[in-house]
């Protein structure tokens, strides 16, 4: 019916398929090629960590994966749909329906309760007040924040704020959770708590998790690690055993 529909998808096609994806920022002599031809398939239900040095194109990749940005060339198929052919609003509809986002800086609305923050995505789905309230409550409970509904971000610790953000990302029951350095602003203990939460969401709800991280220990939670270097994938496989395990 519209370009967003995923009808006629190939049963064998993966959730995400990228072929020859490039991204060039700027023009002329100022042009900078952040992605230099990325081919990747990601199966539904997988937990993928993206690693690589600073400036290697990880965030650029995440933005394209999350349909926030379009590749300069190449194909990005999400559920068989060519995302690069969609308009801005069509991509927005895709995001609100299939994606949840978790950011390094949490990005919660200030002076707004945890409850209202989590309700936000539902507002754009046009759900009724009662349904919104119930769903937000449930999402907060599932990240271990039952009873914290009426606290504003300023009254919460960093770890708690990130959990509110995760509740906001999963309240719409997305297929994919995208997290760009979700533990970047957290201490080690909170980081492990957040990772446990993401692993649980992946294992219990079958949510596909795509996460950028700089830390081996966090990447160890993933089932697959994709390594970037200078805008290209230069490594793809199982994570290295966590550093913790060596000390045991």
């Amino acid at each position, binding site marked *: 019916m519209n370009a967003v529909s995923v009808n006629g998808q190939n049963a064998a096609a993966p959730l995400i398929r990228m072929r020859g994806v490039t991204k060039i920022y700027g023009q002329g002599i100022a042009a900078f090629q952040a992605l230099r031809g990325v081919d990747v398939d990601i199966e539904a239900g997988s937990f993928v960590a993206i690693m690589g040095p600073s400036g290697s194109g990880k965030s650029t990749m995440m933005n394209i994966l999350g349909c*926030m940005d379009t590749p300069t060339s190449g194909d990005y198929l999400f559920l068989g749909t060519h995302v690069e052919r969609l308009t801005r609003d069509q991509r*927005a509809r895709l995001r609100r329906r299939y994606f949840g986002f978790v*950011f390094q800086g949490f*990005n919660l609305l200030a002076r707004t309760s945890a409850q*209202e923050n989590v309700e*936000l995505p539902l*507002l*754009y789905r*046009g759900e009724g007040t009662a349904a919104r309230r119930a769903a937000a409550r449930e999402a907060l409970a599932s990240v271990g924040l039952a009873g914290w509904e009426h606290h504003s971000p300023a009254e919460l610790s960093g770890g708690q704020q990130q959990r509110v953000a995760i509740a*906001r990302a999963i309240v719409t029951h997305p297929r994919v959770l995208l997290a760009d350095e979700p533990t970047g602003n957290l201490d080690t203990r909170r980081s492990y708590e957040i990772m446990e939460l993401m692993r649980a969401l992946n294992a219990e709800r079958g949510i596909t998790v795509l996460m950028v991280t700089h830390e081996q220990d966090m990447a160890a939670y993933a089932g697959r690690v994709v390594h970037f270097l200078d805008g290209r994938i230069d490594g793809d496989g199982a994570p290295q055993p966590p550093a913790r395990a060596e000390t045991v």
Partner: protein
Amino acid sequence: MWWNALLLALREIRRNLLRSFLTILGIVIGVSAVITMVTLGRGATQAVTDQISSLGSNLLMVRPGQRLGPGGGGFGAPQFKVADAEAIASQIGGVRAVAPQVNSTVTVVYGAHNWSTSATGSSADYFTISNWKIASGRIFDAAEERAGSAVCVIGATVRRELFGGTDPLGQGIRVKQFSCTVIGLLAAKGQGSMGNDQDDIVVLPLNTVQRRVTGNINVRTLLVSMNDDVDSTQVQAAITRLLRERRKLSAADDDNFNVLDTRQIAETMSGTTRVMTTLLGAVAAVSLLVGGIGIMNIMLVSVTERTREIGLRLAIGALEYEVLLQFLIEAVVLASLGGLIGVVLATAASFVLAQVMGIPYLFQPGITLLSFLFSAGIGVLFGYFPARRAARLDPIEALRHE
């Protein structure tokens, strides 16, 4: 979606209560200024119109001096005599009655109460010409007029100040140095067009005032009432010709008196108030526009300040028009709120001011609705640009915004 957008807007306004209030202050002032100006202006016009009927229709006022105005009334210009009034009454067609009139400020005393008021000396015709109704008692008769009897008819204000609740009829009051019997009470007329109290008056026979108050036989004003079907300009011209002759003015001399049509005065005055109303209303409308610019300014600041928030909304799937609508509705709700407060404020202010200025308060539904809708319209107009800017933000850039 509309409901949600409204909800979001209200939530946002509540989140920044003080700033929201300051933002709409311009609109509040603009709307209340427009409504107050127009309401008071219309009230003033109405007061003038009322004055026409209370003065009496088809009435000419003849006074010595060159023209009406401050200091007018003509120092040095010869005064009229009763004979002038009689000449006009008998020689000019279309004239129904002529009342010679003398005014003087006097202090009236009854018992322990005293009051400074205006004593008017005239004939019995004065009451009909000036549209006075008698509330109780009677007016003076021809014999009393001729004899210059010490009788008087008092206005409602004088009655209130001197007698309070007691019946004034038949009582004696002291006017200047003589005692005078109250024979009648005038029905209240209320305030005049200049906020003057028309009921603050004591009417006596002309002879009485000339003899006992002013001490001369001069007449200050001639009140001429005309028949309904006559052309007042023709009567005016005839009176001018007659008086020039009686005052022995040569062709080279200017008139040393003037003839005024009360209806003309009233029309001129109401015309003036109308122009003033329009001017003040226009000035107020400009302030409303300035209020709109204030809203645009704050909305732009708000969009910049909330860039990350907008980025987040876009990231979680808000469509362009949803963000546009959110900010537009926020602007419209703010502006309408300002309009609403302005309407309430203006209604209260113009009610109080009308009392203070002594003009009737006439609620103006048209201008009230119009300025409210105008303020909402200003919200749309000045909210659109910031809202569009918000809707077109790039989500990635916006999320990275510090």
